[in-house]
C-alpha cells in the first residue's frame, strides 16, 4: 500500500508513532537492565510477530491478508515495547519487500504497533484478575489486537480518502475499507488467537518463573494451569 497515503497524513501518523517508539525503547532498556531473563521471552514473542506477519493467508472473502502476532508481546511486555518490535518488522518489510514503505511506516506503526496493542492491553488489564480462564484471556487479547490493527488501517485510509459528502463522507469510506480489510481478518484473528494461546501454554509449562516475576498473571492462575493447585 505504498504511495497511497497523502504526505500530510504520513506526517500526522509519524508524529503519533514517534513518542510511542521512544517510550518503548526506554522501557525496553529498563527491563533488560533489571532482568536478563526477560531477553529469551522477548525473543519468543518477537519471533512470533516475525513469523505470523509474514504469513499471507487466504480468507473467506476471496482475498489474502496476514495476521499480526502482536498479542503475546502485549501481554508479556505491554503495548509500547510491542511498538518497537513492530517497527523493526515493518522496517524489514518496507526495505526488502516493498510491503509498506518508509513514508507510510508511521501509519503502519500506529495501526499494528500502537492501536492494536493498546486495545489488546486494555482487555488484558480488564481480564487479568478475574475468574476468566487464562488461556481464554490470551486468545481474546491476541484476536482483538489483530482485529484492531485492521480497524485502524481502514480508518487511516478512510480519513485520507473520504467518499463524497453526499454519500456519507469518511464514515462510508470507513465501512468500505472495513469490508476489505477487517472482514478478511476475522477468521485469521480467531486462528491467530488460538495458536498464540497454545504457545502461551508452552511458556507456562517451560518457564513459569519469568511469567511470575514479570507479574503477567496472578500466581494462583499460573499454578492452577500447571496443575499444582
Amino acid at each position, binding site marked *: 500500500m*505504498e504511495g497511497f497515503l497523502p504526505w500530510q497524513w504520513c506526517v500526522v501518523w509519524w508524529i503519533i508513532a514517534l513518542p510511542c517508539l521512544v517510550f518503548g525503547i526506554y522501557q525496553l532498556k529498563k527491563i533488560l537492565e533489571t532482568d536478563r531473563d526477560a531477553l529469551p521471552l522477548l*525473543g519468543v514473542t518477537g519471533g512470533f510477530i516475525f513469523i505470523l506477519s509474514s504469513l499471507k493467508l*487466504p480468507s473467506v472473502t476471496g482475498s489474502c491478508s496476514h495476521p499480526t502476532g502482536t498479542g503475546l508481546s502485549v501481554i508479556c511486555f505491554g503495548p509500547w515495547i510491542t511498538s518497537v518490535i513492530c517497527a523493526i518488522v515493518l522496517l524489514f*518489510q518496507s526495505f526488502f519487500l*516493498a510491503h509498506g514503505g518508509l513514508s507510510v511506516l508511521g501509519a503502519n506503526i500506529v495501526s499494528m504497533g500502537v492501536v492494536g496493542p493498546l486495545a489488546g492491553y486494555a482487555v488484558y488489564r480488564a481480564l487479568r484478575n478475574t475468574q476468566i480462564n487464562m488461556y481464554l484471556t490470551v486468545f481474546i487479547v491476541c484476536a482483538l489486537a489483530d482485529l484492531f490493527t485492521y480497524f485502524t488501517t481502514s480508518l487511516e485510509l478512510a480519513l485520507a480518502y473520504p*467518499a463524497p459528502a453526499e454519500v456519507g463522507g469518511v464514515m462510508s469510506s470507513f465501512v468500505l475499507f472495513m469490508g*476489505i*480489510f477487517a472482514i478478511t481478518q476475522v477468521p485469521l484473528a480467531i*486462528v491467530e488467537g488460538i495458536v498464540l494461546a497454545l504457545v502461551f501454554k508452552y511458556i507456562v509449562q517451560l518457564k513459569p518463573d519469568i511469567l511470575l516475576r514479570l507479574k503477567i498473571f496472578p500466581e494462583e492462575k499460573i499454578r492452577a494451569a500447571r496443575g499444582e493447585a
Partner: protein
Amino acid sequence: MSFKYGLEIIALLAIIGFCSLFLYTSSIMSDAEFAGSDTVGSSQIAELTGKAEEDYQPLIGQWVPPSGEIESALFALQAAIGGIFVGWVFGYWKGQKKTA
C-alpha cells in the same frame, strides 16, 4: 484445564476448520483471485479518486522485489528468522529445566 491436551485439540480443530472454510469458499467463488487485501484496497482507492493505480508512487523511493518468487522468498526468510528465535529460546528453556 480439565483435559491435558484440550488446547492442542482446539487449535488443531481451528486450523482444520480454517482450511476447510478456504476450500469451501474457493470452490463456490470461482472468480476469487485470493489477491492480497492490499491490492483490493488499492483498486478501491483508485475507484474513489478516479486516479489510475499506477499514478500512486511512494513518496520515498524504494526497492521493489523484481518478481513474486523473490518476494515470497524474502517473506519465507522473515518467517525463518522468527522461527529461529522461537526454536532457540524454547530449546534454551527446555535445557535449563533439565539441568535445574
